[in-house]
């Protein structure tokens, strides 16, 4: 709750998103430390080597991809002469040994300096700081939409298990699982934007510019990302809930005359949601891949477009910075989900302790 308060109050008073997220994370970790300190410390200890490996691997892939000369020519243009190429290589430390380049970058990164793009000379942190809230919005909208669709559908399908209602919902879910999100996006754009003219086909509007236009522009991208997610969530929830509904405590509840709705939503949903929660967390990372394509299709200036531009333009530092931020986010998100387990289910806390 304190973390949510930080996020909301920070937003109102204009604290940058990265600081808000950092503070919220610290509050959550502190809370978890109080209840289960040794577990939290163990998990935190695994974060550092994970992040080192991810960044080292990314750096290796980039620097070994092409020669420094090719990078220089790509950035400067084909008309650049040899002097300009040499100058560029020296100025950007591209001629240094791989490990030295990595350590130079790492020494800056640990104090928050992700460097400056040598393609556009703009701070990497600044560029990522502009892009990541947009991608986060897209992913949050998609996840929320997926949950809004999947939870009622999953509960309903479990309640009507092996009957016609279950079959209809499950078939629809299979259909949406089978449609790649970029195909669905193209289809939705064609139908809803170009043909029926109900929604804009592309582009992004900032929330502060117009709330209505913002959501109008984000609806199709969010739906494109959400449909397959919702199908996954629905199937998982249905499966777990069908099992839960066989449990003796459910039978007891029914015997006591508890209404079906209360049995489903009050008693069965919570113990059926662990798998959903895990996949929800994992999908938050997976969504980055999907958002990358969706951002390009819908011309949204988020992390996906930033990463693609950095790969195409050999903008090493931007790509490296983006990977680090995403990797940290992914690892921390999973870490938080683990902590959430302990809050949701005391049995897990006790086993791990």
């Amino acid at each position: 709750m304190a973390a949510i308060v930080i996020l909301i109050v920070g937003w109102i008073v204009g604290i940058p998103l990265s600081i808000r997220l950092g503070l919220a994370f610290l509050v959550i970790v502190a809370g978890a430390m109080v209840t289960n300190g040794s577990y939290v410390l163990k998990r935190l200890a695994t974060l550092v080597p994970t992040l080192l490996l991810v960044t080292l691997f990314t750096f290796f892939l980039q620097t070994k991809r092409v020669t420094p000369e090719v990078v220089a020519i790509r950035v400067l243009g084909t008309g650049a002469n040899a002097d300009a190429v040499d100058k560029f290589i020296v100025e950007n430390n591209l001629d240094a040994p791989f490990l030295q380049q990595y350590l130079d970058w790492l020494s800056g990164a640990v104090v928050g300096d992700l460097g400056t793009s040598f393609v556009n000379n703009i701070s990497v942190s600044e560029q990522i700081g502009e892009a990541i809230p947009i991608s986060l919005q897209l992913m949050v909208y998609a996840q929320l939409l997926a949950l809004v669709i999947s939870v009622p559908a999953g509960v309903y399908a479990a309640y009507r298990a092996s009957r016609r209602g279950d079959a209809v919902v499950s078939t629809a879910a299979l259909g949406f699982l089978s449609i790649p999100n970029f195909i669905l996006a193209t289809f939705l754009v064609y139908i809803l934007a170009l043909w029926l003219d109900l929604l804009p086909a592309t582009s992004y509007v900032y929330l502060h510019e117009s709330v209505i236009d913002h959501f109008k522009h984000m609806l199709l991208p969010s739906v494109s990302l959400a449909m397959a997610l919702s199908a996954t969530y629905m199937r998982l929830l249905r499966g777990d809930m069908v099992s839960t509904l066989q449990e003796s405590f459910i039978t007891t509840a029914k015997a006591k005359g508890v209404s079906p709705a209360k049995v489903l939503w009050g008693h069965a949903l919570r113990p059926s949601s662990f798998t959903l929660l895990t996949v929800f967390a994992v999908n938050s990372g997976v969504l980055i891949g999907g958002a990358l394509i969706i951002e390009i299709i819908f011309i949204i200036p988020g992390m996906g477009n930033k990463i693609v531009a950095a790969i195409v333009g050999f903008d090493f530092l931007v790509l490296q910075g983006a990977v680090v931020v995403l990797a940290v986010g992914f690892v921390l998100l999973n870490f938080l989900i683990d902590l959430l387990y302990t809050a949701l289910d005391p049995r897990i806390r006790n086993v791990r302790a």
Partner: protein
Amino acid sequence: MGKLRTLLALLLAFTLVAAACGGGSDDSSDGGDDTDTTENEEDSGPATTVKAETEETDAAAGGPVRGGTIVYGMEADSANPWAPYRVSCAISCYTVLQTVSDPLFQPVESGGVKPYLAESAEPNADYTEWVFTIRDGITFHDGTPLDGEAVAFNINTCRGSGLTGPALANIGDITADGQTVTFTMNAPWVPFPENLSIGQCAFMFSPTWLASLDDVPFRNEGTAFYSEEVAATPGGGDPAAPVGVGAFQFESFSPGNANKLIATRYEDYWRGPNGITGEELPYLDQVELVVAVDIASRSDALASGEFDIIHTANADEIARFTDDDGFSTITASDFGETSHILLNSAQGENPTFSAINGLDAPAPMDPEGSNAESPLRFTSCRRALAFATDQQRIADERYAGIVEVANGPFPPGAIGYLEDTGYPTYDLDAAAEEWTQCKADTGKDLIQFTFNTTNDPFNVETNTLIQSMWSEAFGDEIQTTVTPVEQGQYIGLALTGTFEAFGWRNHGGIDPDNQFLWWFSGTSSPIGTLALNFGRFQDPIIDQNLVAQRSTDDPAARQAAAEAVNQQFGAEVYNLWTVWTLWGVISNPNVQGLGTLETPEGEATRSIVSGRHYLTNMWCTEGDCQG
């Protein structure tokens, strides 16, 4: 209601079909390719100009009115924005430069160039000196006056840059006095103003802003352009916040796809009510230049009203909008780039390169022998391939039949264009004849070489089509492999001569002199070193005529020299020409004034240049650009 019912039916059908065909995999395994199919070829040429084949818009809704914001979908981001001496400039970059600044000269419909920011340009008798007089009373967006000193400062930043310096290497010295600036050349340079009309260094920016940039060449100690005075001033200027002299004043910029540059009307624009001409320009309040790399998304954005105007070289999209009465489409192919297959003919020694670079002995062009087995060193083999290439089929099957096949590097309307250049056209009998000679010259019965392209699917498919034509012509006597190469590597390989045949696009320009750097023997350096003459050919006839067209002011002689170059390409087939690139500028019907810019003296300019154009005189019906 009918549409909704159909929509529901479609959705249901779509879902069922997908359920039947698909598995249960997660959507994260997308392998879709959303990249532009035609526009990822490297734009590696210098500044280019095209003459618009104007299909006039039929939306002449009254006269120009002030107001409105135009949203422009551009095809790419630009590296190292926006100072001319450092920016890697292709069409989108030029769209920005033309928005926030103006050039010294403008190419005009009547031929050649006319002074624009300059008032006049006077050469001496042998064209080794040019004196430009700059229009008085023009100010940059920061209030700095545009005078001779400012022009000299701009051109010197370009001369001192490793990127733009080579194109201006013929300038020996620049001096300024008041509104005049004098250029002293190392050798006669007749089409010098042509080189300051469309290239990135033609556009003037505030010397105050340029001097504030950390990497301005004047700060490079130990170089010829080092200036203690500039070096002593504080740096830290933002190169991504340009201060030009154009119709629109920079407001904000975020790099990358889906981001944009915003510029607003400059109230003291020299062609505006407060300017020296007292005209009404510009009409628009604001322009937003949005990068949208994916052509399908860019088109969709235009179709749905998110963008008001876009540019593209994608023939399918041009064809799509040309057939749509709801949009205005202007196409331009003259003076544009030529798509071609670059052939590596490096062999022997290059005395011209050695002389220019002060080497004691002629430089061997292939020191490691990496090209020694290539059949493309032989004219007979190159000609055989040209005879076997059905260019019309390429135009029809790969470019929706709306482009013209190319017979040389100069499209119709360009100086040097010829209806018949002597370039081999599709003729299987002639191909067989040359093939026999090719086998004799190489001493081989099996002709093998690599024929690569970028990893863009469109380019790979085009190469594969051409490969199939050669196989049809020569059967199992030819063996070519098409290997997609990552674009960044691709450019590096071309520059260092590490290739045999490469798909390419280049050589746009309003004047044959624009090609000097790409074809002169002096820019053909040995394999393994950087060369702008990628194919590394050395041709004394081409050299002689490149120098001739640069040195004479006789239009007939210049035309003859350019034609001779064209014919020599036709005879020797240093490149296999395919088609002349067609650019389309597509807008909604409310967007007016495209391609109609005139000089202050009323001369029509060539306003559409390889898809780029000025927004200076554009307006929107009733000030509403969204329609």
